[in-house]
């Protein structure tokens, strides 16, 4: 009988493809919008992700997220270094500074100043040059996306393509000369500003004169040191905030979730997508069963039990659900693939696969249950009516 169920399902190619398309669309919108949402939220803490070496980030206790800089005095660095369990601690400057472009316009850039001695906290991937080149006079490293886009030099031809800045080009950072000594690949950030790496001391010279310029203290714990114990110890002995990488990422993520309109805007979009997808897929499958009601009536009149009919409908639901889900998430993955390395934020996680899988299963089960009730209530005598 399962063979009959499958042939009933696939016999009318048009209807079969209609159901599959409905479910494909449902799982596509169930995964594509949330993937963009996750991608966007991931960008909020991508700067922390890129700095992988330190275990702990120390900052002012009022800092709410990674871009909420509340500078410290340089002396705080030595206090942190003195805490028991700290292997090493290095300074980091992070600030938004004006960069003057070749055409005279200004572009805000995140300038990251790394510890002069160790250069800890630098970009994760160097495309041109090396991190040590920062030790050259006026040396800065620019991220590739910024180099190609916002920091690019305008073309000399009217309507021509702008020319990415390259190693050897010069910039003007807050009225200070800077020479590009390297191009790096960094994760795109939520703010989408170009990122310029330099040494801590040079960054301080670029920054406006202020009493406090130390943004973060990057800490490595001694081997075997419990990180939660160490963060508590740093907090208690310095009065500063200390977070593990994961905690700092969560702090940033939570800030954006609570204080921006992103979750509600995307939430509505995802919810609507789910509802529309569910309606389309459920309606299509239900219509399919209605269209086949007479055939189920014939089978029932000829002695097929409700149990077997239910199994047939469930098999049909499982099959279209699986195919629709596969095509839907496949389409989302393809979308992500073609949109990778663009400004579009996109992150397709396994949790999203599970979420959409559960969603599609619910839709199919719901549509199947409604259809099944119709078939159970079906009077087999319907076959004698024309």
């Amino acid at each position, binding site marked *: *009988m399962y*063979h*009959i169920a499958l*042939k*009933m399902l*696939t*016999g*009318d190619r048009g209807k079969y493809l209609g159901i599959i398309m409905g479910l494909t669309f449902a799982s596509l919108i169930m995964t594509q919008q949330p993937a963009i949402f996750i991608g966007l939220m991931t960008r909020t803490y991508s700067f922390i992700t890129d700095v992988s070496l330190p275990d702990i980030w120390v900052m002012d206790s009022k800092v709410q997220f990674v871009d909420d800089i509340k500078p410290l005095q340089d002396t705080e660095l030595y206090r942190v270094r003195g805490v028991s369990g700290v292997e090493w601690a290095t300074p980091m400057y992070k600030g938004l500074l004006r960069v003057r472009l070749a055409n005279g316009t200004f572009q805000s850039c995140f300038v990251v100043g790394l510890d002069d001695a160790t250069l800890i906290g630098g970009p994760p991937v160097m495309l041109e040059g090396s991190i040590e080149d920062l030790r050259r006079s006026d040396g800065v490293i620019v991220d590739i996306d910024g180099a190609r886009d916002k920091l690019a030099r305008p073309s000399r031809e009217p309507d021509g393509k702008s020319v990415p800045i390259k190693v050897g080009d010069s910039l003007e950072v807050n009225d200070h000369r800077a020479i590009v000594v390297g191009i790096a690949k960094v994760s795109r950030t939520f703010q989408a500003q170009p990122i310029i790496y330099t040494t801590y001391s040079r960054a301080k010279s670029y920054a406006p004169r202020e009493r406090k310029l130390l943004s973060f203290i990057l800490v490595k714990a001694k081997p075997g040191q419990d990180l939660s114990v160490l963060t508590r110890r740093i907090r208690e002995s310095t009065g500063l905030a200390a977070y593990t990488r994961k905690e700092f990422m969560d702090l940033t993520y939570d800030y954006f979730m609570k204080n921006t309109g992103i979750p509600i805007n995307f939430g509505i979009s995802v919810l609507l997508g789910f509802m529309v997808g569910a309606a389309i897929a459920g309606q299509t499958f239900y219509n399919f069963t209605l269209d086949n009601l*007479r*055939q189920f009536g*014939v*089978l*029932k*009149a*000829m*002695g*097929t*039990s409700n149990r*077997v009919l239910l199994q047939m409908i469930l098999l049909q639901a499982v099959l279209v659900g699986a195919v629709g889900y596969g095509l839907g998430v496949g389409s989302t993955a393809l979308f992500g693939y073609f949109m990778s390395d663009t400004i579009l934020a996109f992150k397709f996680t396994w949790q999203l696969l599970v979420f959409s899988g559960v969603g599609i299963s619910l839709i199919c089960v719901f549509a199947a249950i409604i259809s099944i009730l119709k078939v159970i209530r079906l*009077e*087999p*005598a319907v*076959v*004698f*009516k*024309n």
Partner: protein
Amino acid sequence: MGADVLAVRCRNVVKIYGTGGQKVTALGGIDLDIATGELMMLVGPSGCGKTTLISVIAGILDQDEGSCEVFGKDLAAMSDQEKLKFRASHIGFVFQAFNLLPSLTVAENVSVPLLINGVRRAEAERRAEHILEQVGLGDRTTFLPSQLSGGQQQRVAIARALIHDPGLIVCDEPTSALDHETGQTVMQLLKRTVLQKNRALVIVTHDARIFDFADRTAEMDDGRILRIEKSSVTN
């Protein structure tokens, strides 16, 4: 009559649709016996209760009063599961609109009753091809119903009704969708293939052109059998 054994025995069968002021008495106390080897036709105007009566006889509708025994079994006394099994093994159906499953091939359609009875697919389709030879459609086994004429589709439906060797065949207007010549061919096929194994055949029809194929004709009106006549023609 071909034999003395009763295939169907109905006594005072009453069926009422609706309640209160909406009550409609579809069957108002039917007494009817149909023997094995007999072709019984139920005739009468639309709404006289013919279809309700064959639905009760076929076990797909429960009467409100009276009893209806098929091969000595009281259908009303059976559980739903028992009734399903009984229908699957003892009753064959031929419908006015053929009711073939459009996405199945001719052989697959014919094999459905065997599949319902638990026969394996390969064996069911082998037997389907064999019976399709008998109804003259041996060269159409892989066709879809939509590729066949109305007469051919009804022959497929007849093959489907016979494949599991049931003792009782119920037919609802089997020739009304067919032209005269095709209708005669279908009736000859029905009478030959059904009655050669001493089965009972009940046909509901308006089609006066086929009345002569009946052994007996029960004329119905207003939910009652007005008269039962033996056919004067020998087919």
